[in-house]
């Protein structure tokens, strides 16, 4: 005698089938949305890595240089070099280095110093007579044999001079030296599109003359060219006469500095405000009304467009406070950028740390008060440590936002800061520098088809993303460790 006699449990009724089909549909829809998102992410990363691949490496050849027995004064007379070799360098240095290259490459070892023991005939088999028999071609190219060769390389002159002056004992010695190729030669050697001069644009190395291409082809044939990792990208400044050498050193430095400022300013102020609003702020009467006004405005601040913060920062830190601020706050300086980013990050940190404080179980506070802890002890010994992972998450989100923020930095002129660069030393709070996001936009502006520069835009993206991702990894690591230590 079963009590369930009246209750018939059919195994596969129509209702069950319908319910299951709905469940399946939901799973398929949500799964495909997730797949689509993953696909977009993969496409994004692939695009970035593909776009950056040209910048990974640089072409070099190794040559031997002989330092002279004693330093010789340089002749800085007029030169055959027609290429403008950089806005920042003194003319003398340029001339001198050009002549060194020329002398080195044609094997004239007796007139100038230091000399590169290298004969272009030896390396390539291209004779001066070959040069004469071929047309030189385009106007910006030097019209002499020495000039043609010299244009293929980056001036080593300043380097040799500095080495020699710093270390006179080099006199009379011979050392190997890695000679870097110039931008055009580098693009040609590695098969990338260079600057379009003739307008047709698709030919690699279109700015090189047929003779120069012949020389480079020979160097490749004879395996003289090495491709090396382009580490100088991380340390060089970006306004370089040779685009192949341009880098984001000051931009990295400025972005890290601004993050430091954000941490120093927004973390204490933001978490402090969160604590005040959660534990001390009056809730009733006139002051309570004021508290609620402030709360509403903090929430609103989080959604103010970043460019508005930029304009406000420009007005406050540069124009109004500039003279009385303890720092010399000028346009495009990390101190101003950092303060603007701090203001932007503040609401995020306040809102998230309040949420984290609110999420602390009230029973812990009760327990702490119950054994006689004061308010301060309760907050700093129990509530804050417990809320720490949540606060940290908010801070990391805010920092990641701040380091990628572009608009306010554009407003204070950090993109256009290509004419100056960070001075010597680590702290350059008051120097005009670019930052990482503005560097991306700067490199991207070379829309003339120069892959050397466009690839640097993607490389900057990779650097920026790695910083943000490693910050996130650090945060989740700390969160995980705190959670593990808390739960047995």
């Amino acid at each position, binding site marked *: 005698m079963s009590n369930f006699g009246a209750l018939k449990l059919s195994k596969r009724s129509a209702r069950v089938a319908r319910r299951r089909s709905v469940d399946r549909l939901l799973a398929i829809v949500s799964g495909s949305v997730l797949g689509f998102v993953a696909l977009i992410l993969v496409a994004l990363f692939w695009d970035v890595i593909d776009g950056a691949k040209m910048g990974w490496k640089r072409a070099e050849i190794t040559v031997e240089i002989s330092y002279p027995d004693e330093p010789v004064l340089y002749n800085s007379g007029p030169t055959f070099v027609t290429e403008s070799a950089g806005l920042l360098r003194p003319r003398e240095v340029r001339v001198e280095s050009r002549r060194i290259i020329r002398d080195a490459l044609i094997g004239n070892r007796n007139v100038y110093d230091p000399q590169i023991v290298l004969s272009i005939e030896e390396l390539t088999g291209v004779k001066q007579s070959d040069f004469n028999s071929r047309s030189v071609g385009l106007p910006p190219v030097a019209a002499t044999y020495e000039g043609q060769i010299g244009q293929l390389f980056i001036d080593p002159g300043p380097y040799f001079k500095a080495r020699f002056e710093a270390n006179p004992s080099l006199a009379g010695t011979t050392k190997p030296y890695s000679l870097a190729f110039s931008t055009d030669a580098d693009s040609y050697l590695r098969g990338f599109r260079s600057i379009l001069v003739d307008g047709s644009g698709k030919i690699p190395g279109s700015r090189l003359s047929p003779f120069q291409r012949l020389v480079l082809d020979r160097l490749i044939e004879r395996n003289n060219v090495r491709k090396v990792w382009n580490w100088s990208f991380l340390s060089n400044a970006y306004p370089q006469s040779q685009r192949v050498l341009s880098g984001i050193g000051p931009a990295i430095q400025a972005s890290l500095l601004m993050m430091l400022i954000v941490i120093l300013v927004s973390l204490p102020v933001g978490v402090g405000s969160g604590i005040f609003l959660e534990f001390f702020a009056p809730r009733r009467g006139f002051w309570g009304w004021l508290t609620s006004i402030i709360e509403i405005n903090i929430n609103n601040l989080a959604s103010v467009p970043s460019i508005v913060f930029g304009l406000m920062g420009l007005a406050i830190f540069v124009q109004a406070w500039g003279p009385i601020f303890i720092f010399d706050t000028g346009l495009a300086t990390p101190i101003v950028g950092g303060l603007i980013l701090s203001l932007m990050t503040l609401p995020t940190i306040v809102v998230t740390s309040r949420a984290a404080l609110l999420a602390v179980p009230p029973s812990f506070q009760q*327990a702490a008060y119950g*054994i006689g802890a004061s308010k301060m002890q309760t907050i700093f010994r129990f509530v804050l440590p*417990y809320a720490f992972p949540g606060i940290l998450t908010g801070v990391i989100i805010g920092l990641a936002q701040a380091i990628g923020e572009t608009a306010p930095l554009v407003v204070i002129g950090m993109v256009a800061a290509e004419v100056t660069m960070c001075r010597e030393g680590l702290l350059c709070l008051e120097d005009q520098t670019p930052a990482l996001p503005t560097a991306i936009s700067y490199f991207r502006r070379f829309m003339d088809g120069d892959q050397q520069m466009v690839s640097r835009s993607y490389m900057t993206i990779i650097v920026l993303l790695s910083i943000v991702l490693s910050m996130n990894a650090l945060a989740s690591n700390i969160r995980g460790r705190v959670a593990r*230590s808390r*739960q*047995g």
Partner: protein
Amino acid sequence: MTETTNIQCRNVNVFYGESDALRNVNMTLKDKAVTAFIGPSGCGKSTLLRCFNRMNDLIDIAKVTGEIIIDGQNLNSPETDVVELRQRVGMVFQKPNPFPKSIFENVAYGPRIHGLCRNRTELHDRVEEALTRAGLWKEVSDRLREPGLGLSGGQQQRLCIARAIATEPEVLLMDEPCSALDPIATTIIEDLIGELAKSYTIIMVTHSMAQAQRVSEDTAFFYKGDLIEIAPTKELFRNPKQAYTKQYLSGSFG
């Protein structure tokens, strides 16, 4: 410290904003004994319990009037140092709420903030003593550095009791200490309470009339913010004087 810790309530009223949660409570509690507060939900028994260590201060809208006297001292006066009061009047909550710290730190925290121990050895001795009194020492002596939240529910509650008695209080307040525990853990805690009553004055709120009968010496019955009756437990349960008490005990409401 005097020999007897006499607790008296005189005209205690508690207001939450406009509404009154307790009206004119007058009672005297026995020293070194368990007094149980019983009554239906919302009758004010927990509210009164929280008056004894001024936990109502934490609620913005709560206002307590009247006098609560321990050792001739009115603890409800503004001059009373709440921190010192809470050292002398420990509290155990409904749900076990150890701090998210190690077992040792849970117990050591009270003595530490009140500056009761001069050095590490003293602190360690005190932690051991508190855990022993709470009947937990044997179970945890070899894992004092492990998190308190890793213990079972009953062990956590005993840890909370150890934490409360580590500051050497005279009075222990217990707010339904067994309501979140299984029957076996409840039995252990009840035995422990009986043991602790030899050295502390214990005030316990409970929903279980059986528990009140098992554990307490005196029982107070509250209804809708009024103290209806307080009497020795046996007497109150066998022979209640008030009609409300009689009805409640017979299960007519509550």
